[in-house]
């Protein structure tokens, strides 16, 4: 013990000053535990020096969750990346948090199983980070987001103590601490091993591509499908700018002249799958779809998905900077909120692209711009404020999968009352009374009744 790898060279520290979002912080020291004991040791050492700490997976988070504030010790979990145990009969895997999301699915593919949550960043992000943000993905529409798939975790709390949350038994004794921990963005401690549920591959899968001459028609089709009583495995939407960009980038066979396309996947047994494909086709055509293509073979399906999954890669090629938002609205309000998103972009004279999880009402407006243009960031932030307001006005929530972190922290009081936020602070403090675990995230200053408001030290957004 005491041999935890530690780095503090200024150049290296820069790598850890932020995640993939826009908030920058400052790391004092970075360490790389290789076991749960290392992790507990590092946290206790930080406690002794009264230094706070922040867990970091791959740093693909977009809300600043892994961005160090208050000179936190950055604890990088990527060396704890072993798949510890796979039980193909019980369909459970124990993994260390540094395992990459896609690596887990790849390692159980031969068993006819997969790990259901599939964030678009799945090649790069870690299971620990997914637990931190309660990550979602296209297939979480019917399968549920990360919390549905996490059974248990061994967690090191803010004081270095090791506790097990949840278990392989269906109900743990007492409060659902596992449920509280998932999505807590590292503010309730750090997971050192995680038991996840594995999902059997469906016997039949169909992937549909429906194209539309208006965004409204596509959005109405989404509501129409849900209203029909169908919850597809995935229901994704892409608007014209992103469809064209992606098509040029990968050639997935998307129509270049469509105003919007829907990518829909239906899985299950053949009877239900056929019936749902027919119903979806009918709803889409009724709402003015020009064409509904059905891909059956693995190869054709993969090509359609390749387009969707390459969206961010394609954007990175054309735009020096982008800002990706994440809001959720009731599915029945999709049309109006989407309309408002385009208006806001026009008001701020910004290019917006939309590629998102339409089936669960989870919008991802993406602003593409050149950050060196004078005044541009002010416009991007103003547009972000507008989008958040439009979402809340429509009865939506601040984030569907990226989390609150630093990015949305100061919006929390728009969404919750003072009593709500005080309750959240109490829950957090019950896990970490000394406040060492990822301080200043999620809850705005002043959340605790009687607390002074102040800006986090050493951050700029």
């Amino acid at each position: 013990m005491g041999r935890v790898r530690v780095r503090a060279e200024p150049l290296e520290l820069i790598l850890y000053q932020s995640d993939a979002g826009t908030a920058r912080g400052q790391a004092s020291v970075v360490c790389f535990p290789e076991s749960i004991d290392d992790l507990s040791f590092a946290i206790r050492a930080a406690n002794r020096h009264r230094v706070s700490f922040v867990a970091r997976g791959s740093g693909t988070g977009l809300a600043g969750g892994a961005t160090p504030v208050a000179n936190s010790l950055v604890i990088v979990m990527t060396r704890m990346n072993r798949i510890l145990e796979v039980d193909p009969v019980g369909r459970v895997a124990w993994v260390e948090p540094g395992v990459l999301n896609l690596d887990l699915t790849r390692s159980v593919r031969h068993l006819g199983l997969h790990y259901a949550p599939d964030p678009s960043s799945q090649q790069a992000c870690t299971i620990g980070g997914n637990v931190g943000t309660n990550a979602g993905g296209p297939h979480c529409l019917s399968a549920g987001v990360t919390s549905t798939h996490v059974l248990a975790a061994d967690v090191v709390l803010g004081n270095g103590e090791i506790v097990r949350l949840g278990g392989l038994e269906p109900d743990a004794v007492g409060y659902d601490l596992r449920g509280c921990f998932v999505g807590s963005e590292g503010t309730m401690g750090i997971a050192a091993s995680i038991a996840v549920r594995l999902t059997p591959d469906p016997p039949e899968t169909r992937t549909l591509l429906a194209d539309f001459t208006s965004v409204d028609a596509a959005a109405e089709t989404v509501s129409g499908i849900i209203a029909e009583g169908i919850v597809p495995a995935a229901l994704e939407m892409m608007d014209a700018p992103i469809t064209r960009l992606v098509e040029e980038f990968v050639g997935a066979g998307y129509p270049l002249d469509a105003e919007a396309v829907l990518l829909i996947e239906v899985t299950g047994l053949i009877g239900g799958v056929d019936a749902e494909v027919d119903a979806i086709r009918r709803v889409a055509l009724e709402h003015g779809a020009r064409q509904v293509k059905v891909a059956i073979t693995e190869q054709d399906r993969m090509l359609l998905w390749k387009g969707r999954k390459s969206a961010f890669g394609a954007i990175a090629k054309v735009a020096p900077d982008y800002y990706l938002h994440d809001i959720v609205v009731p599915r029945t309000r999709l049309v109006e909120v989407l309309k408002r998103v385009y208006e806001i972009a026009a008001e701020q004279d910004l290019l917006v692209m939309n590629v998102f999880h339409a089936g669960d009402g989870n919008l991802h407006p993406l602003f593409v711009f050149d950050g060196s243009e004078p005044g541009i960031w002010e416009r991007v932030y103003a547009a972000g404020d507008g989008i958040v307001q439009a979402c809340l006005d429509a009865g939506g929530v601040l984030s569907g999968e990226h989390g609150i972190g630093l990015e949305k922290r100061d919006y929390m009081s728009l969404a919750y009352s003072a009593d709500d936020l005080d309750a959240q602070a109490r829950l957090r403090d019950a896990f970490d009374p000394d406040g060492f675990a990822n301080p200043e995230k999620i809850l705005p200053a002043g959340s605790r009744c009687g607390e002074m408001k102040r800006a986090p030290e050493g951050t700029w957004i």
Partner: protein
Amino acid sequence: MTAFVELAEQIGNATAVEIMGAGTQRGIGGAVDASKPIVEVRAPTGIVSLDPADMTVRVLAGTPVGVLSAALAEVGQECPLDPEDSAATVGGVLACGCSGIRRIRYGPIRDRVLEVRFITGQGRLVRGGGPTVKNVSGYDFPRLMVGSHGTLGMLVEVVLKTQPLANKSSWYTSELSPALLRTSIYRPACIAWNGKMTYVLLEGHEIDVLSQASELSLEPAQSPPHPIGKHRGRISIDPARIGSLAKRLEDIEVRWLAEIGVGTVHVATNKDAGLHDARLAAHGEGGWLLREAGAPLLDPFGVVPSNREVMGRIRDAFDPSGKLNPGRLPFARFTP
């Protein structure tokens, strides 16, 4: 809202409160300590808004599950809370954290709750979660409240995720081993086993239900009889260990029904020591037994979780004077 404000005042001013549902599971989680004067409170009743096109429903916590189910059925939907007695209230079912028999397919009830409103011991009305089907803004109060036995707050209103009613839903029996059935059936709605007979519930498109049943030569049947007896409990165990638990239960005078792939085992007995013996069997396999009814001398949980300190701090944070359902969840009390 005014009903909430009045309840909040009542709870804030009381010294001890018992939160009442329909009373179908009143003893669960421990008897309420009667040494202080107890005020009984009940959550308001009614469906606030049912949005079939969004597949969500906002319902007051005192609403009987049967009433909710009937309203949802009218629009071709359901919410699989599945209590044994449909007079149970939505809030009561959630507070007990007892998931229904179709959990293997539709998940635990904690995954159904999108938003909660509850009143804390200090009489504050708190909202957590949100009405959309996906949400990561702030801490997960919906999951915290499910299974908290009314010790953190009184649920007054929730938003639940609904689902379309299956086109066909049929029970079958089979001579095949439960393990084989589990691997052969894609997404069964339930596989229940009592040591002699395996029961299978298939739900979905009619074509699929019928073809799976015929492929495996399943016999149409009634739903499995729920174990009955004076003393009842539910074991929670790693589903991989149901087989070895069954061996232990063989030697005890209890009736039981195990949910394969889930790990919930319902047990019932008329013998006074039966539940205690079943609990020992559960402990022997790394599980635990929740006393649901009868066996008044038996501890409600029989185990003290290793993370009880965190639980105690949470309880103190929401009910500092210990007035909400005092006596329930005895281990979750923080003594610094």
